């Protein structure tokens, strides 16, 4: 005989009510797990794409919101912001720079909106600035009409080296010169073109989306940034890849806030559900609790008993909810990917792990037990004589 045994036996009195209370906490735990997985996953995916998996340390862009530009491109548009190509020759001789990659980025969306293709015009500098940009087959552009396919595009288009690819939008045929190895970045879903071909296709000769720069020594970043800024026209930005990634994550902040509001709503519903259930359980058993006090149950015995009942529900509900959340996270990541407009990272958007599961479990269990305190104190305050006389 123990307090836990008595508490568990009390839960069996109304199993449906205990189950529903546990489920309300499970919903909270699952929602929290999913949201934490998405939050952590999206941040990691964006940082991987823009910082960890690229050799780019700095970008030169035109003044304006780079996030807005990314959004325009992602939706199949052409960014109104561009930098002049001649700046490349101005900075190329700087000894502190390991590589300078000018690029032109644009996207084309089909009329029915079902597909968006991303095109990137590059020079050979891409090979030194992107460490994992390696050919699985074929090689560099052989002519102005050459195209190199990212691994995913090669799979979707079912094309091999030497095959011809027709672009209906541009009414132009390309020859596949190379296929890239999969590197789990945005490169997988990109068509790479010679820089000048890409510029001509959108009527922006001599214009670049941005210039990507790899430094010899990253500790010089601030100094180089200051020097480059001095060399550039006043309406040009020198932005670090980390700043760019932080900017995108800041843009994601609104979505993040909505997700956490959902979690908060789920918690509020659970809190009221648990308090209501435990209060009902206490009120239904007033006479029995009064009797327990008669036979020597102290205030803390009753608080312990009611808290253990709630803790048992909370542990079961939170465990189940955290497990379901872990299973649902990848699905919700795929769902979120369809609605993201600012920046869709190439890696997994939801990244569930044991830490998230434990956080969701611990927080929901804590909230569950905390909710028991009011009903438990109500039970402890029952005056046996009044209950036994009046009820």
């Amino acid at each position, binding site marked *: *005989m*123990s*307090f836990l*045994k*008595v508490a568990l*036996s*009390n839960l*069996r*009195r109304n199993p449906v009510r205990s189950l529903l209370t546990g489920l309300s906490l499970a919903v909270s735990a699952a929602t929290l797990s999913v949201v934490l997985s998405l939050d952590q996953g999206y941040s990691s995916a964006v940082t991987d794409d823009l910082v960890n998996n690229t050799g780019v340390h700095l970008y030169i862009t035109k003044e304006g919101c780079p996030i807005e530009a990314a959004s325009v491109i992602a939706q199949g548009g052409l960014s109104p912001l561009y930098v002049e190509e001649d700046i490349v020759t101005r900075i190329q001789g700087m000894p502190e720079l390991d590589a300078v990659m000018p690029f032109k980025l644009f996207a084309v969306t089909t009329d029915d909106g079902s597909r968006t293709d991303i095109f990137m015009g590059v020079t050979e500098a891409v090979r030194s600035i992107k460490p994992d940009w390696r050919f699985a087959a074929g090689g560099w552009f052989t002519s102005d009409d050459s195209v190199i396919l990212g691994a995913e595009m090669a799979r979707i288009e079912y094309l091999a080296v030497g095959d011809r690819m027709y672009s209906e939008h541009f009414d132009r045929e390309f020859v596949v010169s190379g296929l890239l190895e999969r590197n789990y970045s945005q490169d997988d879903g990109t068509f790479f073109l010679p820089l000048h071909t890409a510029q001509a296709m959108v009527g922006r000769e001599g214009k670049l989306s941005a210039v990507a720069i790899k430094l010899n020594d990253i500790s010089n970043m601030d100094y180089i940034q200051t020097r480059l800024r001095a060399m550039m026209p006043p309406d040009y930005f020198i932005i670090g890849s980390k700043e760019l990634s932080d900017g995108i994550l800041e843009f994601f902040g609104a979505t993040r806030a909505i997700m956490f509001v959902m979690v908060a709503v789920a918690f509020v519903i659970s809190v009221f559900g648990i308090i209501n259930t435990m209060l009902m359980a206490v009120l239904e058993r007033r*006479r*029995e609790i009064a*009797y*327990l*006090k*008669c*036979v*020597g*149950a*102290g*205030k803390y*015995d009753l608080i312990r008993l009611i808290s253990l009942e709630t803790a048992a529900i909370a542990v079961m509900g939170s465990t189940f909810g955290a497990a379901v959340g872990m299973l649902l996270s990848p699905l919700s990541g795929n769902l979120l990917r369809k609605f993201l407009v600012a920046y869709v990272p190439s890696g997994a958007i939801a990244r569930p792990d044991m830490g998230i599961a434990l956080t969701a479990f611990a927080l929901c269990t804590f909230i569950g037990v905390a909710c028991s305190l009011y009903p438990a104190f109500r039970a402890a305050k029952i005056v*046996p*004589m009044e209950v*036994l*006389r009046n009820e």
Partner: protein
Amino acid sequence: MNNGSVIELENVSKDYRRGSETVHALRDVSLAVTPGEYVAVVGHSGSGKTTLMNIMGCLDRPSRGRVILDGQEVHEKTEAGLTRLRRSAIGFVFQQFFLIPTLSVLENVSLPSLFVGKPSNGRAGELLEMVGLGNRLHHLPNQLSGGEMQRVAIARSLINAPPILLADEPTGNLDSRNADMIMKIFEQLNQEGVTVVVVTHNQDIVKRCRRKVHIEDGRIET
């Protein structure tokens, strides 16, 4: 007043507020119960019997007067002190049995021992043997008759070996055969030295008690 009393009430009054009205449930009651006594408290409904039992059982405090239980001054005790006193000195039996429906008979009996930190299934089993339910240890309360449930409640009231047993209408819900069985158990306990105080309307029970205390309008009538 007898200094060897196990229960001693000295000029005890108890007033309640009911709306704007003050109810005088007990008026200047003095009573001493010595160890090993078998007392019936009788009176009409509303005469103050239950209030008297609640005060004797430390479930309520008097408005005025002194209560000494098992040698300890009740009015000096904190709420926690009264709880400890109830645990060690008093066993309660009510008209309703208050058994926990999801615990077995054995677990119900040993439940009060949990609150003293010494859960004892062994003693619970012995007590159930004593009340004739040794073969029903693992049954649930809903598998028992009313008389059996009251016998479980009696066994439970004795788990912490209290010197005093307070019973409020213990046979009120039972037929005459079961009521007789319960009274025999009380008599046996009394013979073993337990002080038994029974609040009742039942004249058959009153006749079997060795002392009768009649209460009317909150006063003990001699």
